[in-house]
């Protein structure tokens, strides 16, 4: 028996040892208070319910502990014979019920406010794709896709050997964050193109599913300038853990400057698709697009994962059937993770990535696909 008594001490030591690991952790224990009125209300309610639970726990576990220490056979007690009391049953039915009512009323009030998306100042549409987010500003028409940052992508490859703590904001950084103004009511429309995703930003206490074929809505009004990070919260396939959400909340004037700059950049990109592109140019651009949009399934070596994600190396489609190749990239393949990229990528990116796939990994077809070809095929 002596050895048994020592077990808890050994275990405690083990935990302390584990706790001393040198990691870049901040030991956050609790919910974030967030940066909106709603998120602070949610935090307060969370603490309120937590303390109610603690109080009930102290009473119940206290009674149990008292019983365990004093009502044990080794103390020579004779067991009592009572085994029924309608009064007691009524008391511990009614009192918990009243506590629940006290919890439900503020919860219902907050919920009603959270679901009121009327009178928004700006509206953005968020579309979940496997595995990235697309943002569209309905008023200004700005539209872009936000991918996991390349540094995280590289480190998060099986056997990469890169220490994640050396990557800034590992898995919580994107190539292009969504920019929102502070102090404005932003309505967020949510949908998805393939499977169900969920858009979650803890700092604004907002989480909702993005469902293909349906549009959900929610709203927020951010109080403080800053960068806020979140993740997809609904299992959406292989790279569910690799589609972060980053919101860059800016002052109204900074936000307006950003809108102007974005619109100008979009115009410049559209005109570049009109000219003839060189093979080298397309290959270089294509490699970048591939590494962002295609690599998760088809893998860095183009060989995919047998049985789930097909190989692109030496297949009839990659070597011969140009039209079929362009078609599947533009329109996707139903019932699989292969999605339609026609609206996700611009013509230059599409041309580049198809050219890359037809010439990389020893495919060497020499085919050069021009952005203008893509444009004409889109029209068909």
């Amino acid at each position, binding site marked *: 028996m002596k050895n048994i008594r020592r077990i808890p001490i050994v275990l405690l030591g083990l935990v302390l040892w584990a706790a001393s690991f040198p990691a870049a952790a901040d030991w956050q224990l609790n919910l974030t208070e967030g940066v909106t009125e709603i998120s602070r209300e949610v935090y307060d309610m969370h603490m309120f319910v937590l303390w109610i639970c603690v109080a009930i726990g102290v009473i119940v576990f206290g009674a149990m502990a008292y019983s365990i220490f004093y009502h044990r056979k080794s103390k020579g007690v004779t067991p009592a014979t009572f085994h029924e009391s309608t009064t007691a*049953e009524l008391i511990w039915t009614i009192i918990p019920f009243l506590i629940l009512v006290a919890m439900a009323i503020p919860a*219902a009030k907050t919920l009603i406010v959270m679901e009121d998306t009327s009178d928004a100042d700006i509206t953005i549409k968020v579309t979940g794709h496997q595995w990235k987010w697309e943002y569209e500003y309905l008023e200004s028409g700005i539209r872009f896709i936000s991918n996991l940052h390349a540094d995280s992508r590289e480190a998060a490859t099986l056997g990469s050997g890169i220490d994640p703590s050396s990557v800034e904001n590992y898995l919580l950084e994107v190539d292009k964050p969504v920019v929102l103004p502070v102090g404005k009511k932003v309505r967020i429309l949510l949908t998805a193109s393939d499977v169900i995703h969920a858009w979650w930003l803890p700092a604004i206490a907002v989480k909702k599913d993005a469902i293909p*074929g349906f549009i959900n809505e929610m709203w927020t009004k951010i109080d403080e300038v800053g960068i806020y990070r979140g993740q997809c919260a609904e299992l959406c396939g292989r790279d569910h853990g690799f589609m972060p959400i980053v919101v860059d909340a800016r002052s109204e004037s900074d936000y307006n400057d950003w809108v102007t700059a974005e619109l100008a950049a979009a115009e410049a990109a559209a005109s570049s698709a009109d000219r003839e592109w060189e093979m080298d140019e397309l290959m270089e651009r294509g490699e970048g697009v591939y590494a962002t949009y295609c690599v998760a399934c088809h893998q860095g070596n183009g060989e995919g994962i047998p049985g789930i994600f097909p190989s692109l190396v030496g297949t009839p489609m990659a070597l011969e059937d140009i039209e079929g190749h362009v078609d599947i990239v533009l329109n996707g393949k139903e019932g699989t993770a292969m999605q339609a990229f026609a609206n996700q990528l611009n013509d230059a990116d599409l041309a580049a990535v198809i050219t890359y796939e037809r010439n990389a990994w020893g495919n060497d077809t020499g085919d050069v696909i021009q952005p203008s070809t893509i444009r004409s095929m889109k029209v068909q």
Partner: protein
Amino acid sequence: MNAQATDLYHDDHDHHGPPPGLWRWVVTTNHKDIGTLYLWFSLIMFFIGGAMALVIRTELFQPGLQVVDPHFFNQMTTLHALVMIFGVVMPAFVGLANWMLPMMVGAPDMALPRMNNWSFWILPFGFGLMLSTLFMEGGGPSAGWTLYPPLSLQTGDALPFLIFSIHLLGVSSIMGAINIIATIMNLRAPGMTFMKMPLFVWTWFITAYLLIAVMPVLAGAVTMMLTDKYFGTSFFNAAGGGDPVMFQHIFWFFGHPEVYILILPSFGLVSEIIPTFSRKKLFGYSSMVYATASIAFLSFIVWAHHMFTVGMPLAGELFFMFTTMLIAVPTGVKVFNWVSTMWKGAMTFETPMLFALGFVIMFTIGGFSGLMLAMTPIDFQYHDTYFVVAHFHYVLVPGAIFGIIAGVYYWLPKWTGNYYDETLGKVHFWLSTIFVNILFFPMHFVGLAGMPRRIPDYSVQFTDFNQIATIGAFGFGFAQILFLVLIVKCIRGGEKATDQVWEGAEGLEWTVASPPPYHTFSPQPIVK
């Protein structure tokens, strides 16, 4: 039955024991044999499902991907859940029911013995189908055990295997449930009125109705998925006029009663064990029965609390929040009654009692987080995070599983005729309890701090708590080997158990020999 007829019957039975050899286990219609088969099956699956959990925890020991590809990780989370729910907890309950229900109500056997054999032998084939997908090209199912379409429709060849496996498991469960209801309704000993039945019998009676009500619903949902995938229907495809959210509603209409199927029999076990070792009758027997029935009723009208973020209308969110919070009332009644049973008793702390006490405390912790999750506005923060993972593991591992383990310790001397090694049992309890908390408690923290569930890799601020959880997982996993050793040791010998086994035990099962003869209670005893 008159005395003469009884004698005839009796002679007939005494002359045939079990047939010799392994064939006995294939053809057996004896409730004790079938109970044993169920329990061994469940224990084997416990180690298989546990090994999958350790793969998950190993990958999550550090940020970055070190061990498995995310696709395989998703297969592990999916199959871990399916194995633990359908392969461990449910068969263990049915095994305990098979062994004990006839003995507790004074019946000679289950009411439908041949069907009983069939309902067990479907299980290994069902799981054979399910686990064989791991060796297929493309691997096993990876869309989570909740199988939400459209993601689950991206599954390859594993999908039809999984669906047929779920059908088989459902058929097995429904047959088991029918058998239990038939036994309780028809084979109770004279004088064993409903309100005299032991609470384990009551909770199983109610659970069996839940099973019959909801297993067909799951079967319907997965069949619609099958036709969506292979026969061109669009039940869950918005582009064809269907609705992916409809699947979630149907699934959770099954799923929420299912989680009570996974806990109610454990409530019953604990309600047997605590009075025995407190040497005091169960406090509030009738309110315990009513509370169980209320929980079962409520389980049908709370399902959408699993889908608060799906974008329901406000009225729906409020309705499901209120009904969900209401569950705390009957659940609270049960906990208060257990504590009152201990109050002023004369307690001893043999291993079954330790596991039962662990159950009450840790199940209550899981109940508290459940109450927090019930509140819709704050659930938006908790939903699909590790806080949820912590919650349901608290109610299922130190809840359902501890209840089962307590039940096994409680009746092991009755089954084998030998007392188990009490010291080893206590070591098993303390290691399990300490490690299960090291494993699951830190998950509350990472969940609140923002770590989503079902991710194979995480951002570095979650590292420390994940490392602690992984250490807890290995500790808990390896502690269960002690359980296996203890059971084998107990079967092979040990101090001979009396018929009564435990000083404070009451009930018909303690009136027969330890181990009980192959056929008990013919003729039936008379309960006064």
